């Protein structure tokens, strides 16, 4: 490097450093007025990246809740109704951006409380900021148990069934129907692997045997060997916790090799891509958190059927409500009740209200119940089974089942004749 170049660059870096130092301080900030005019809730949504689709599904339901609440005059807090403002930032599904997003919401936008980002990784990264600054965070898509073991004081899971509790209903159903062995097939990705592990732990808890425990790398196309291993283990319930595209390949290879299982569970069994398989999709178990035919004794907000009607009215041209939309809506219903109950919007008061309301609120997807850490212990999932001609029935929990299960599910030969 020439000396002159070096000197010029040294001077340049000085200016840049000064610019960088000043930049964030000159950003416009919202001064909080002495008298409250609204309740300001911050949240992040991913416009791009891994979580974009799911976080935007949740955002649509949150917008629906916001519209309904403000149309009714807002939330009743400290004896007065306040409109609710939602301040949204883009987190790009980036763990490194999440802390910055929540700092911006807290310090620039001066929000009263926040909704968590989509997913456990981003939520954990954001919670380090919110908890340190005594801001309450309502999680709506935080399935990992570990987030609630970190000692955070002010985070509550208001809508999602934790990954450790998803297998409870399918495993209980298998035991009730006489099955004895659970096998898992997972792709090497966080949620898939965690869910498979939870299935094994739940099966052991209920005294069932563990058959095959298979894991594969994304992109694998030949599942014949692992399917045969699961069949050889006399599997009663095969849990496939990977992608629907992989599941389609697995089902095709099961059919080609005439490999049958009494029950197959997958999160994606009711996806349109799986239902498009026609008779090959009959008998598969899937999960949902709401069903219009299942009416819990709701004491807060709409039933599942009423929610779906309202959602479809707001978004007549789709996309349809999905599992993320429903949990987001349920979380906001619970959050509204917390805000109305809490004496202030301080994090400790909201957390106290969250604990007070635990076990007393039943919303569209079941009863809200948390422990001291904010971990969700309510909201059982619904186990849905595909039936002939594109039908679906709720087969668990038994109390809200809409039909008796097809157990064992039809073999490939039987499906061909249906």
């Amino acid at each position, binding site marked *: *490097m020439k*000396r002159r170049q*070096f*000197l010029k*660059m*040294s001077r*340049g*870096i*000085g200016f*840049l*450093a*000064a*610019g*960088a*130092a000043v*930049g*964030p*301080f000159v950003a416009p900030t919202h001064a909080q007025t002495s008298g409250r005019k609204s309740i300001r809730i911050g949240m992040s949504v991913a*416009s791009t990246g*891994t979580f974009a689709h799911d976080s935007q599904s949740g955002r649509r339901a949150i917008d629906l809740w916001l519209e309904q609440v403000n149309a009714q005059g807002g939330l009743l807090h400290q004896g007065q109704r306040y409109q609710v403002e939602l301040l*949204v*930032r*883009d987190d*790009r599904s980036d*763990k*490194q*951006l*999440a*802390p*910055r997003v929540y*700092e*911006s919401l*807290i*310090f620039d936008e001066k929000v009263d409380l926040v909704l968590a980002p989509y997913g*456990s*990784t*981003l939520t*954990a*990264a954001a919670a*380090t*900021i919110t908890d*340190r600054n005594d801001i309450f965070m309502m999680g709506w898509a935080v399935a*990992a148990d*570990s*987030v609630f*073991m*970190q*000692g955070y004081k002010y985070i509550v899971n208001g809508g999602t069934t934790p990954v450790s509790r998803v297998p409870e209903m399918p495993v209980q159903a298998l035991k009730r129907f006489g099955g004895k062995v659970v096998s898992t097939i*997972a*792709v*090497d*990705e*966080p*949620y*898939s*692997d*965690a869910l498979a*592990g939870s299935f094994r732990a739940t099966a052991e808890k209920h005294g069932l045997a563990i058959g095959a425990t298979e*894991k594969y*790398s994304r992109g694998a196309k030949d599942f014949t060997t692992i399917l045969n291993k699961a069949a050889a283990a006399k599997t009663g319930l095969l849990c496939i916790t990977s992608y629907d595209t992989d599941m389609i390949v697995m089902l095709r290879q099961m059919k080609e090799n005439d490999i049958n299982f009494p029950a197959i569970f997958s999160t994606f069994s009711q996806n349109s891509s799986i239902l498009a398989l026609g008779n090959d999709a009959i008998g598969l178990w899937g999960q949902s958190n709401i069903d219009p035919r299942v009416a819990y004794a709701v004491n807060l907000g709409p039933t599942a059927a009423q929610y779906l009607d309202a959602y479809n009215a707001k978004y007549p041209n789709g996309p349809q409500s999905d599992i993320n939309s429903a949990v987001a809506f349920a979380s906001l219903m619970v959050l509204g009740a917390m805000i109305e109950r809490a004496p202030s919007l301080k994090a400790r008061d909201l957390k106290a209200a969250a604990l007070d309301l635990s076990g007393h609120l039943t919303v569209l997807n079941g009863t809200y119940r948390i422990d001291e850490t904010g971990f969700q212990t309510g909201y059982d999932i619904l186990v849905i089974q595909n039936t002939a001609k594109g039908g679906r029935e709720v087969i668990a929990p038994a109390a809200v089942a809409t039909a008796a299960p097809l157990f064992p599910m039809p073999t490939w030969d039987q499906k061909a004749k249906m």
Partner: protein
Amino acid sequence: MSMVMQSVPPAEAAPSVRQRAPLFRLHRASVSIWCLTLVGIGLIAVSIPAVSAGVSFWFYLFQWIALASALNLMAGMTGYVPFGFAAFFGIGAYAAAVLNQFHHAPTWAALVGATAAGALLAVLFAPTLRLRGVFFSVVSLSLAIVLRSVIVLLPEDVAGGSSGITITGRHDPILLYYLMVAVSMGAVAIATAISVTPHGLRLKAIGDDLDAAQIIGVNAKGLRLAMWVLSGTIAAVCGAIEGLYSSAIDPAAAFNILISTKAIIYAALGGLGTVMGPVVGAVIMTITDELIWALSHC
């Protein structure tokens, strides 16, 4: 070769005295100016937590300065562009998380462990330095992907499996911010020290023409290995500090290819092979990214 040698005038073949004098003048001037610049940046960095409510922007700004500077030690000075650079960041994050979460090591011990893991990984990957150009880049990328798969396939109680590791112990973010500032300033100081000693010229010679450098007696293997280990170790320490700061580590984020590509782009934008280039590139790109992000919600 012989034709080239014949075409070079004898007077230009050995201008040792004329070239060495400016080099040492540059040395004296640059050290004083650059030390002042570093002190200025350091003072700004140290004062930020006192005057700014949040430090995340600054934390990641200094992280990118450190990563771009670390990558520059290898890519800029020797011409070897490691697309698998993210492997070092990832191994550092995982080493710190495993030590802190599963073995209850204190923060300092987790960082020491991450440093050692980064250096060890660099030594293990050292045979790839026999390759050149795009072959080295592609193989280093492949090794990063393989390393990620190995970590995913390890038992959950060893490295967290596919779900990664959530660090349940609390760490002071301001302390971690200062550590990141120290690492970034350290990376720049190392680059400065190398560039103003004869090692800098030797490394440039390796980057310009490896064969020619070896012919004139440059210990290319040793210097390359030293830069590789240094570069990887700094990246591993960055990964460790970032992992403790965000408290959530998963394979997708820790071994994200964007860590490699961003570091390469930031360093290249400012100028590969220069001391300040990666700093300038990281500052410009991080501020630009911040502005784009801020404008997206205006």
